């Protein structure tokens, strides 16, 4: 095979506008699919030596709303020749006793169209076989691309796709395809077709500026011509352009845009040639709550809100348009007029909603579905109110001061905003609107804040409710959602989590931990399940077990991910019980701090040894747990260990009760010399049954102590283990 110079490949799938929310992921996937296919076909130049790692950056993917682009700088013009081996029958079948080819060998050779003498022998783990080896001439890239490119394109998985002609489905109609192999005069279009569109060497510019096809002779030519036709194909370049131009617009005014990464992504992924413009609105609207103003600007209009250096909202906005200028000012005034109408609407909603205070809306919740199988929000609220009573009692028992009336009132009103026009218009403001309305309707600050915050935290990054009242309502809401979801069999499994229960449970855990609310979860879950009136998918006891297991898993996840605690620290702590999640956090933090000390390491090794002796060496008949008999302690080391252990147990208990787990663990760790000495000098499995049983009881006591705060035996041996 003669060596040909590597060629470049440029592919552009021209589409009607792809939804901005799909574009980022689709771009990455498009590049990855092409790269995988090229690698599998041995076409990537970087992979000639079989060096797969070198090829990982060989495909660049770009996009605009109207195009998915992949560029491969160096592609082999022809696939390297491949040696192929086809295994035939085993040697013992292929040859007869005389060493002659059998009929089986003949038909294998015939099938593969080779003479008998071309058959070779091949050793495999299963034995010796005959085989055919042949060299397959590499195919030209152009040929292979005809198959690779349509498959890579049509294999993209879209969250929602459509048909436009025939049966072919894609995210939106494909209108042109540019597929160019090579540069300049020798560049050739890859001949293939998708849904009736033939690939060629042409692209199209920004639709407002040009409509004629633009012939392309290579990647540089493509970039140059598209820039002239107002298309920036690099999403990150569009982002930079937006950011730098926004800065220019606002810098002299000493203002900044309200940070909003999601909106920024949207602006990047919905434009080919972005240009931010600055608009304004009547300051009288600043009388509306900031949350509502921002929601109108971002949700409906995709505008960035603007604030001053002190964080005070300003009567201005940034709109990112898809043109290179607004020289006439038409666009700005158009946007301002639309925003004015939107703000008037919001003002109307605000006023109309006030005519019926939240307190008069509880009845209307009977008409709002929570989940089809779980009834209405009226029912959910009723359950939440019962749960808040239970949580308040537990919190009080744990020594916290809670205003029960405020909590219950907040729970009652928490979902009423779902019936307001404002939330119907801005669903993302649920809770927030309720809180703002409650304040305006003089429900009291405690109630208002609790309603405002009760959906929080909405993710691991989100903040928790500001007040204990808010936390209680939030907990009631989340535990009810999880319990109810499990009861009707909608628990998460793998990537499927239809009711977003992981987020709910993570939220509940975060609230308990971050606000240090030292209440047990078990009675709350029990109550939540007991009051459910649903179609149970499993017996209640079984559901209860699964819900608790789920919370344990979420607690472990939180401790590891959000708190950065070692995998085995968490495992050890949870094994010692997690009745009160925030107590588990304190134990885990203490354990993480002390685990590096020499004494502790040695002691956890000893704890493992103790566990082994108790579970493996000793038979059940050997001992029963109980008090150690002083008389039967024969040797000095075991007497010493017993004394130390008894003292440590008492002190550890009082440290733990005071919540000082560092001191408690430190105290346990100080047992190390006595334990070491014991194992050094004393034979646990003594001949005398009574002595043996007594020693086992002593170790049993130690095991109990070593598992009370965390199960030391579960700690990894050396250093800090991570996931």
């Amino acid at each position, binding site marked *: 095979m003669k060596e040909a110079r590597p060629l470049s490949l440029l592919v552009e799938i021209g589409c*009607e*506008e792809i*939804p*901005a*929310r799909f574009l980022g992921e689709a771009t990455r996937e498009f590049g990855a699919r092409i790269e995988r296919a090229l690698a599998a076909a041995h076409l990537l130049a970087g992979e000639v030596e079989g060096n797969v790692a070198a090829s990982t950056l060989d495909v660049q993917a770009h996009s605009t*709303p109207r195009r998915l682009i992949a560029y491969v700088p160096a592609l082999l013009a022809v696939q390297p020749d491949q040696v192929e081996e086809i295994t035939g029958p085993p040697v013992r079948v292929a040859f007869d006793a005389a060493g002659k080819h059998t009929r089986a060998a003949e038909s294998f050779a015939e099938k593969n169209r080779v003479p008998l003498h071309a058959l070779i022998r091949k050793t495999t783990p299963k034995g010796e076989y005959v085989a055919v080896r042949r060299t397959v001439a590499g195919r030209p890239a152009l040929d292979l691309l005809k198959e690779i490119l349509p498959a890579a394109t049509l294999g993209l998985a879209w969250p*929602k*796709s*459509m*048909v*436009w*002609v025939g049966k072919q489905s894609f995210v*939106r*109609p494909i*209108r042109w395809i540019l597929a160019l192999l090579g540069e300049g005069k020798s560049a050739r279009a890859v001949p293939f077709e998708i849904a009736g569109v033939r690939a060629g060497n042409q692209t199209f510019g920004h*639709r*407002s*500026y040009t*409509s004629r096809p633009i012939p392309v002779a290579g990647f540089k030519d493509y970039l140059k011509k598209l820039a002239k036709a107002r298309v920036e194909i690099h999403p990150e370049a569009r982002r930079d352009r937006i950011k730098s131009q926004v800065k220019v617009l606002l810098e002299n005014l000493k203002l900044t845009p309200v940070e909003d990464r999601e909106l920024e992504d949207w602006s990047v992924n*919905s434009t080919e040639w972005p240009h931010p413009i600055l608009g304004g609105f009547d300051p009288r609207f600043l009388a509306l709550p900031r949350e509502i103003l921002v929601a109108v600007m971002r949700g409906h*209009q995709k505008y960035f809100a603007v604030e001053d250096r002190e964080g005070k909202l300003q009567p201005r906005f940034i*709109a990112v*348009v*898809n*043109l290179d200028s*607004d020289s*006439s000012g*038409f*666009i700005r*005034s*158009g*946007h301002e*007029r*639309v*925003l*004015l*109408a939107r703000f*008037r*609407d919001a003002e*109307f909603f605000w006023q109309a909603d006030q005519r019926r205070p939240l307190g008069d809306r509880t009845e*209307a919740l*009977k*008409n*709002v*579905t929570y989940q*089809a199988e779980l009834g*209405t929000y009226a029912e959910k609220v009723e359950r939440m109110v019962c749960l808040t009573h239970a949580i308040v009692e537990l919190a009080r028992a744990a020594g916290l001061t809670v205003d029960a009336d405020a909590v219950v009132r907040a729970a009652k009103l928490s979902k009423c905003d779902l019936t307001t026009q404002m939330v119907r218009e801005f669903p993302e403001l649920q809770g927030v609107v309720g809180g703002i309305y409650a304040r305006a309707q003089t429900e009291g600050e405690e109630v208002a804040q609790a309603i405002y915050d009760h959906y929080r935290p909405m993710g691991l990054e989100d903040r928790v409710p500001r007040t204990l009242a808010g936390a209680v309502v939030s907990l009631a809401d989340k535990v009810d959602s999880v319990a109810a979801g499990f009861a009707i069999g909608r628990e998460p499994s793998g990537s499927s989590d239809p009711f977003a229960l992981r987020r709910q449970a993570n939220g509940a855990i975060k609230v308990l931990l971050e606000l240090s609310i030292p209440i047990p979860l078990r009675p709350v879950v029990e109550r939540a399940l007991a009051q459910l009136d649903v179609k149970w998918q499993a017996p209640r006891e079984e559901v209860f077990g699964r819900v608790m297991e789920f919370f344990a898993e979420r607690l472990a996840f939180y401790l590891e991910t959000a708190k950065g605690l070692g995998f085995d620290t968490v495992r050890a702590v949870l094994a010692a019980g997690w009745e009160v999640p925030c107590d588990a956090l304190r134990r885990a933090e203490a354990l993480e701090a002390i685990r590096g000390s020499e004494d502790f390491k040695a002691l956890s090794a000893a704890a493992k040894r103790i566990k082994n002796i108790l579970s493996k060496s000793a038979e059940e008949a050997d001992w029963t747990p109980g008090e150690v008999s002083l008389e039967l302690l024969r040797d000095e080391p075991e007497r010493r260990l017993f004394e130390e252990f008894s003292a440590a147990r008492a002190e550890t208990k009082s440290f733990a009760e005071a919540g000082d787990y560092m001191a408690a663990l430190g105290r346990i760790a100080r047992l190390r010399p006595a334990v070491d000495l014991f194992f050094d000098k004393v034979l646990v499995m003594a001949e005398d049954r009574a002595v043996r049983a007594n020693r086992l009881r002593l170790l049993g006591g130690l095991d109990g102590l070593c598992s009370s705060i965390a199960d030391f035996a579960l700690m990894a041996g050396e250093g800090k283990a991570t996931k």
Partner: protein
Amino acid sequence: MGKQKLSGHKGGGGDGMTFQDLILNLSRFWAEEGCVLALPYDLEVGAGTMCPETFLRVLGPAPWRVAYVQPSRRPADGRYGENPNRLLKHTQMQVILKPPPDDVQDVYLRSLEFLGIDLRQHDIRFEEDNWEAPTLGAGGIGWQVVLDGLEITQFTYFQQCGGMGLDPVSVELTYGLERIAAFLQAQDSVYDIKWDATRTYGDLRREEELELSIYDFEGADSTPLWDLFKLYESEAKGILGPYEMLKQGGQAERVALRKAFEYCLKCSHIFNILDARGVVSVTERVSLIGRVRRIACSVAEYFLDREAEAREARQA
């Protein structure tokens, strides 16, 4: 702002175009694109999609191009004629292109230019928006077309109608005429739109908005509405009932499918009023939508069935 400047165009009839000129211009544009100019449907509908010229004609293989103005009612959007942007009854220009041409987006954009909108002076965006009409078993994928931040058209590749997948698909364009007129005339309130040279939209329609809102939100007891719903539903079922039987006797063409569909639309409208009044409970809501959809789906199914038989008969 000067209206002439706003549209920044040459020719095509912009210049703060009146409401009726907007209708005339769009009608002319689409007639020249080969559309039949149909008449508005004489029943209350929630959208132009519900008219038989769309609902029935998007079914089956026959090519079809139609454009018509359709007053459309959304009881929940009633604002007693007070809100400058929301209307209980608004006006749509509905266009169906079956099958859609490959350059359908460009043709649509030319219709805007025909109204005097200069695409280089205005920001036109196609933003993802898929609609679904659960009472009709219909849905599509597409965009809302946004002009300088204002939604002016729903642009949809119709995917399903009457519960059936469509082949070929149709493109449905639904222009919101009040919004476009307000844009062209740079008006903040729809009621200030000039309908013709001397009369405003408010002159013609404000009282009607007020009265419709009063009835739909506060009007007579909802009981008669429930009764009407049941009556219309049973009438539709009564019409459709004998279809299978008559088909055996080769008289399926005697079934008044379009009449059954009209009763289906009446049910749908009554449901909308009940829903706007907030007297429909959650479970009722699901069941009512299902009842209307069943009629719509039967009509679609029989219609297709009959069309197929007619085609066969022609070929025979």
